[in-house]
């Protein structure tokens, strides 16, 4: 056992954090700045990060869940406005079916927990393409087949609207026509879908860890700079203890999220899914507390649109719901436990 980053992983972590810091937003007014976000999207694409779960030969992904999560953590830490996890998850699903990803993302069911499942030739309920780039036109859906699941796709023409100011969620309207899937695609198995969900849980957990790190750093800096009663507010124990708790929650989250990312390709699908659920439950609860703490420590300013902290909270809210929030994970863990016996 050695849970440290390999040399290559440490280098990827450093590079991803540096890129996200340099090209991510610096303040609310700067959010979505066209010149910068274009450079950010291009840099992420050129780094090859969108392809991390594409076929790297022999149907194995180019990179493991660990590398994919390292990038998600870095982008979350800088609340970088770039489609990443959506594309990576699409790549993972496409690889399993033997398809070529192109620019597609995955359409999720309205709960945002599963991929959108479709029976028939059109979507029967709305679906949501989470974390799409602005140019994405196709979203994958999953259709039950005789012995497994078939990958299909629909055109996304819905508009984007999301609480998260840094990642787009686009609605696929009910009644969207399924594109005919190439005949040579392989069927997806329940194990495929379990591992894919495990990846989704690992990536959303990693994003939450990044958000926690970023917002805590920003808030600590503010607590040192902001003065009341003639002293920095960070010198008050009441404030110190809030920030110490936030930092501690982030550290615990990092430990559990790293294991979930490692588990994706290493453990049996059911165990990988379990590791993902455990991590997501912890990270989602922790991130909510950490972001709320950040708003509290920023005081009046923290409750204004101009202050960056709500950008972190909003991102955390989307990452929390995507693949299921803490309550959903606990319910599923409970179900694993009771079903395990029957």
């Amino acid at each position, binding site marked *: *056992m050695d*849970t*440290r980053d390999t040399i290559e*992983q440490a280098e990827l972590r450093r590079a991803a954090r540096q890129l996200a810091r340099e090209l991510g937003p610096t303040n609310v007014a700067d959010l979505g700045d066209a010149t910068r976000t274009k450079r950010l999207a291009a840099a992420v694409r050129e780094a090859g990060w969108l392809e991390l779960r594409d076929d790297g030969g022999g149907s194995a992904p180019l990179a493991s869940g660990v590398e994919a999560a390292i990038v998600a953590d870095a982008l979350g830490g800088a609340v970088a406005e770039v489609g990443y996890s959506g594309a990576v998850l699409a790549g993972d699903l496409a690889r399993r079916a033997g398809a070529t990803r192109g620019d597609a993302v995955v359409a999720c069911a309205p709960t945002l927990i599963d991929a959108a499942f479709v029976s028939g030739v059109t979507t029967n309920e709305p679906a949501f393409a989470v974390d799409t780039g602005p140019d994405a036109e196709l979203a994958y859906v999953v259709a039950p087949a005789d012995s497994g699941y078939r990958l299909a796709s629909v055109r996304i023409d819905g508009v984007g609207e999301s609480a998260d100011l840094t990642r787009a969620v686009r609605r696929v309207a009910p009644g969207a026509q399924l594109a005919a899937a190439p005949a040579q695609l392989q069927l997806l198995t329940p194990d495929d879908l379990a591992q894919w969900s495990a990846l989704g849980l690992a990536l959303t957990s990693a994003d939450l860890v990044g958000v926690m790190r970023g917002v805590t750093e920003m808030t600590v800096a503010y607590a040192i700079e902001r003065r009341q009663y003639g002293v920095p507010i960070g010198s008050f*124990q009441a404030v110190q203890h809030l920030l*110490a708790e936030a930092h501690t929650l982030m550290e615990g989250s990092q430990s559990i999220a790293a294991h979930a*990312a490692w588990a994706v390709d290493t453990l049996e699908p059911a165990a990988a899914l379990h590791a993902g659920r455990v991590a997501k439950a912890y990270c989602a609860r922790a991130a909510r507390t950490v972001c709320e703490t950040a708003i509290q420590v920023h005081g009046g300013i923290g409750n204004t649109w101009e202050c960056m902290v709500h950008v972190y909270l909003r991102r955390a809210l989307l990452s929390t719901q995507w693949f299921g929030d803490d309550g959903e994970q606990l319910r599923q863990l409970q179900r694993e436990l009771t079903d395990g016996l029957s």
Partner: protein
Amino acid sequence: MDFRDSPAEAEFRTRLRAWLAEHNPGLPASSTDDQYWDRQAEWHTALYDAGFFGLSWPRRYGGHELPTVFDVILDEEVAAAGAPPRPSLGYLVQGISTHGTDAIKDRFLPGLISGRERWCQGFSEPDAGSDLAALRTTATRDGDEFVIDGHKIWTSYSDVADWCFLLARTDPDAPKHKGLSAFAVPMHQLGIEQRPLRMINGITKEFGQVLFDGARVSAENMIGAPGEGWRVAMTIVSHEREPGELGYVARYAKTVKELQHAVRADPTGFRADQCEAVAWAHVQTEMLRLHVSRRLSERLDGIEHGPGGSVDKLLMTWVEQAVGAAALSVSGPRAVVDSDDVALKLYLYSRAQSVMGGTSQIQKNIVATRILGLPTA
């Protein structure tokens, strides 16, 4: 990043699992039953004699010089077998190793590690809890010996201890942090009176107070230099805060397993919130297991751990208290109509975790000022 066993780790795990299958004494949890404390020494020596204790410590003193991650395997397997956790005394080993002379180490480490000599830690006093440096117990030089007078309290294992790792004031004129020295004091002598304390959950064997009235200790038994007591104490408490050093993950995992078993045995007998409390306790315990794996892996670098121990202590506290709360929830009304209810005892015991080894408030002060760099008032 790899959480899997190396071949050597896998071999160790297999051997340990086989041994545990035969030798699990099936004791109740340490936090709920005096019976555990009655047989704790037996368990310690059994683990040690079989080669499963002191895994990372020097061979010369009875250890095995294995990487610290082997302790993760030990904790996991002990929990899986439902066996008692390993005895928590790594912090004393660290204190003696770091500050003791070769003579001190040769004299005391083998007995401490093998469990043939038992120890307690005499730090806290009635008027020196969080403000440890305010302690008033004195050690006064008298020829080749020191004479000790004072009162220690909240002392774990004092009733069975052969030795006390004592912090006492040797220089009353020095500033309060600089006048302290540490000693290995023999407990079996006139001049020492040990009185048990009953904990809030009724346990009587863990906690005590120790009265020193002219007790004597050889000057050779000083650990560290004269006046170095504060540094020695800080080494010990920083290790005492580390779940990897304490092996508590096994204790929590064992309880969670029992709670899961109760829910599984009667799937319709529990409300959704009770099930959720158990699931959350499982999540918390897994977090700590993986956090300890990370910390012990970081030590493969030889990274000196500093204030990070306070982060770990806070995490461990939240875990223990989540597990205690889950036990209380699952037990429901039984916990209040049966004073012997194990869940009630677990829950009550869990409240101590945010106090022992430095309160949560002290840990947060350390995280805020020494890790986050926040200014002091």
